[in-house]
């Protein structure tokens, strides 16, 4: 057996039944079902009226990957880039201009200029996590739909306000939780959600580093020319600190004026999000224990446990999740493979195996919803619940004790210290 944590006596590996490649699969998603090919030009180009005009904000490494997923969609016209780093503005403009054979991609240092453009329908937000929620809400208030990288929020208050803002503004929001649009994760969640595993008892998420930190300042370095790197805009809503080049790349958990999440938030915004999907996107757990023996256990209202654990996974690649019910279990990871307690769970289905967690399908889902105004899979309500679970777990981790959360009042019960960690001030002049 590949795992010593299973409760079932059999497990069933899924291998490559379909040879569909990502590229082939993405072809099937090239246009939403409701748009007939007659609406497309003979060369496959999309009529201008059907195009979604997109701008990109904060396009670094991850953003460049996301941008590639947008650019391969024929109904996308990418017209503007905003980045606080000049090198990235220039690099992204080059990509876009080469794609379209023109010089039309505009460059901006201040995202508000980009949001002011009336021709832009939607934005890709791939800044550092520090900016995500604030930027998303600014975009929504400017009338843009958005695909926003994760983790989406920095605390519980931001999570709630994000969901409210998207409802109020009527904008389409897709969190960068692309695994919601991959077939094996979707199937695993469906098994859990539809009772095929029996009554759900435990859902497991991989936190990839359980730590909650209180961030500090790094050694001051000379601040660069704002045209090269606009440090003030880079910090944005984060509490002020002096420039240090180390903060310019990577995940930068260190920024912020309050509690900052480690892997529980960074990785949990994927794994916990899938667990939330498995429990039918119900409100987040109501009780969170402090970590013990490499596990942090949280409990939903109905008693189902959400378990953050570092080890004990079947080797199915990164971002593993496992769902256990009274009659069966399923485990899945980024390899695209599933392991099931019984092949009977397949009930005759074949599940397409797409490894490497591509975002192509998630981007397509977003674009379809921009057109139909439906809710994409990583919508703001789903993201809100998943992120609250991560933040609450981080608070239990930080305080080192059990905390209990009331999903009606959004308070921790009889725990003022925990309650004070639900939010933090934004640096002036930013607000949500």
């Amino acid at each position: 057996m590949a795992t010593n944590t299973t409760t079932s006596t059999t497990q069933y590996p899924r291998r490559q039944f379909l040879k569909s490649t990502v590229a082939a699969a993405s072809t099937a998603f090239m246009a939403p079902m409701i748009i007939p090919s007659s609406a497309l030009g003979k060369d496959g180009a999309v009529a201008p009226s059907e195009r979604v005009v997109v701008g990109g904000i904060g396009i670094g490494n991850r953003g460049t990957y996301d941008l590639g997923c947008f650019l391969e969609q024929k109904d996308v016209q990418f017209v503007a880039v905003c980045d606080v780093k000049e090198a990235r503005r220039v690099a992204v403009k080059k990509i876009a201009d080469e794609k379209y054979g023109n010089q039309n991609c505009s460059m901006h240092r201040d995202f508000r200029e980009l949001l002011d453009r009336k021709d832009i329908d939607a934005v890709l937000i791939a800044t550092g996590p520090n900016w995500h929620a604030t930027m998303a809400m600014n975009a929504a208030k400017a009338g843009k739909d958005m695909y926003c990288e994760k983790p989406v929020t920095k605390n519980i208050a931001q999570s709630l306000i994000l969901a409210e803002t998207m409802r109020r503004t009527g904008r389409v929001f897709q969190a960068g939780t692309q695994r919601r649009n991959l077939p094996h994760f979707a199937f695993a969640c469906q098994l859990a959600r539809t009772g095929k595993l029996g009554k759900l008892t435990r859902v497991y998420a991989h936190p990839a580093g359980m730590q909650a930190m209180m961030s500090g300042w790094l050694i001051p370095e000379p601040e660069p020319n704002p045209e090269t790197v606009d440090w003030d805009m880079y910090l944005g809503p984060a509490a002020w600190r002096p420039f240090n080049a180390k903060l310019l790349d990577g995940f930068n958990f260190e920024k912020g004026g309050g509690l900052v999440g480690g892997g529980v938030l960074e990785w949990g915004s994927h794994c916990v999000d899938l667990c939330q999907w498995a429990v039918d996107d119900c409100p987040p757990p109501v009780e969170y224990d402090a970590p013990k023996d490499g596990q942090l256990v949280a409990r939903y209202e109905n008693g189902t446990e959400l378990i953050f654990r570092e080890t004990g996974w079947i080797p199915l690649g990164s971002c593993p999740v496992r769902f256990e019910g009274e009659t069966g279990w399923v485990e899945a990871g980024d390899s695209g493979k599933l392991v099931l307690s019984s092949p009977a769970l397949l009930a005759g289905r074949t599940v397409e195996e797409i490894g490497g967690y591509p975002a192509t399908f998630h981007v397509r889902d977003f674009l379809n919803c921009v057109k139909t105004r439906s809710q994409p899979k990583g919508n703001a309500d789903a993201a809100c619940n998943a992120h609250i679970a991560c933040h609450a777990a981080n608070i239990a981790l930080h305080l080192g004790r059990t905390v209990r959360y009331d999903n009606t009042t959004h308070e921790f019960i009889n725990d003022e210290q925990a309650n004070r960690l639900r939010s933090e001030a934004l640096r002036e002049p930013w607000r949500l």
Partner: protein
Amino acid sequence: MRNLDQFARSIVHMVILITMSAGAFCQAEGPASSPEKEKELLAILTSDSPASEKAIACKQLAIYGSSESVPELAKLLTSPELASWARTAMEAIPGPEADSALRTATETLSGRLLVGTINSIGVRRDPMAVDSLGARLKDSDIQVASAAAVALGRIGSSEARQLLRQSLTSSNAEIRSAVAEGCVLCAEKLHSDGQSAEAVALYDEVRQADVPAQRIIEATRGAILARNQDGIPLLLEQLRSPDKGLFYVALSTAREFPGADVDQAMATELAGYPPERAALIIQAMADRSDTVVLTAILNAAEKGPETVRLSAIDALARVGNMTCLGSLLRIATEEKGEIADAAKAALGALPGESVDAEIVKLLGTAQNKTYLLLIELVGSRRIEAVSLLLKALDHSDKAVRRAALIALGETASLQQLSVLISQLVSPKHTEDSEVAQQALRAASIRMADREACAAQLATAADQTKQSAKKVSLLTILGEMGGPTALAALEKAAKSPDLQLQDISSRLMGEWMTEDAAPVLLELAKLPSNRYQIRAMRGYIRIARQFVLPDEKRMEMCGKALDAAQQVAEKKLVLDVLKRYPGTEAMKLAVKALQNPELKDEATQTILVIAQKLGSKGVDVKEMLASAGIEKMKLEIIKAEYGAGATQKDVTEILKKQISDLPLVTLTSATYNASFGGDPLPGNAKQLKIQYRLNGKAGEATFAENAVIILPMPK
């Protein structure tokens, strides 16, 4: 709005509780405050400590601070560096003192610092601040006036509403957007508090105001929902609006509108919309699955513009039922192109068990295109109709046989597996063989009794004389996994047939359970096996990737080091040891040092293990001595990271990371993260280090993210 209101109210609630019964909090699980801790933190704020320490103290005060901290925190509101840190604490500390301090600060602050302070007042929803915020609505600084407008909206009292209403028409155009945002926030609060008539009036005022389009959109959504059922005409008006933004918000608002009357209203008007709009409205109607008017969607699917029909057919896949079956079958068989394809897809997903029963019933008498389609549906819907499918296997039309085989793959039971095995091994029509293999594979992987299924396949593989068929059956067994399949593959791997050796060793190399390990080790040692290296790599893969007890993993590594014939495989084992450092791993690495061909890699491994164990407090001196490695003095002279002409000086960073081993461990897993960023995104970079080991100067270059082990200079 309810969530946020409750959230904000909970803060107010906390204020009351703190004021009235502080003692109660002392008994709560999480203490309300920690006077000692607060005293320490306040001492930092009042000292001449560096700003960085004061920042952290502010953050801690967000948890431990009380009203005692407010005066010192308030002093920092004038500091561009520390104001946001102080406000994090002031937004969290309950009690009127923080509110008062923030209000007072607004009297003297200006610019961004004033904006931030006003934002914090908005977060705390301080009703006492309404007058001063109202005055700020006329501030010449647009940012200040806008912040005040939104803060008033968050407070949402009748006084705040009044001020915002006045500004909606009188204020500067540049702040009107924020005033409208404040009005919408107030209206949401009114609606959630049950004052819907007042909410409607306020929403309508915003809709009539000269404000940006997005504010009109938000007010329109609110105006529709606040009117409740009386909002339907307004919703329909927006669906007809020439403004795309209003049409779009009507589509999303339609999805959240309560009751069933709105479904009927949209259905009644559906035919009157332009096709592009009707197509989108149908999608919105279908998202209301509990109350959708199905007949309207079915009508739209049957006739009309192609765009509308495609949308309607797609919607039927989600919300259709038995009543749609006939129409969809007709469209799928009598029409062409995308419409027919869409209907087939919808038939595959059409909800309802009665649909399955009707498909079986129709299958008994159907002919031609309909017959073929129904067989395909039996497969795609996984309907129990095996006897009818077996009959179709004898059909003269290849397409029908193919569809029947695929359907059998989806539906056949263990008892019917032999039919599919026969179709693979000895098909009546040679051309059906490939499809039969697909079908058998689909059936085998879903069988509940995997071992019984594997036994049938293994027997068939034994009995057939055709190598290609044996390979096909073994491939399916490999995909299934389990003890019986493993035994069948082991047997094939030990056979003299090279083709069988090839396929079986490949499949076992990807095995998903550790029980393949002993088989792979045995095959790796077997002289008659042409694929010994592949078997050894499969064995090492299990040691590297699987969740195993440490003892078991090290035992496997030891056996692999002994059995591997090639240096490359031995090096793979050393990589596993690096990944799972421990005393046993160290012993194996020291043993590997005896092999001259492994000297460099084994030394590296020993150093990496020593470094990791050392960081956990294990004394590694003796271990290193047993490997003939002494501690040494390492000096970094110069280090650069980058590519081509773009080089970043990382000398000082590396100097901080050296130890008394010729090994440098970075603070992060990647060079970019450790060296403060990527100096040249998208390019392969190198790290060049000039150094001295025990006084001897050397130079070494490392590929990006390689382990940094510095060789002893010659």
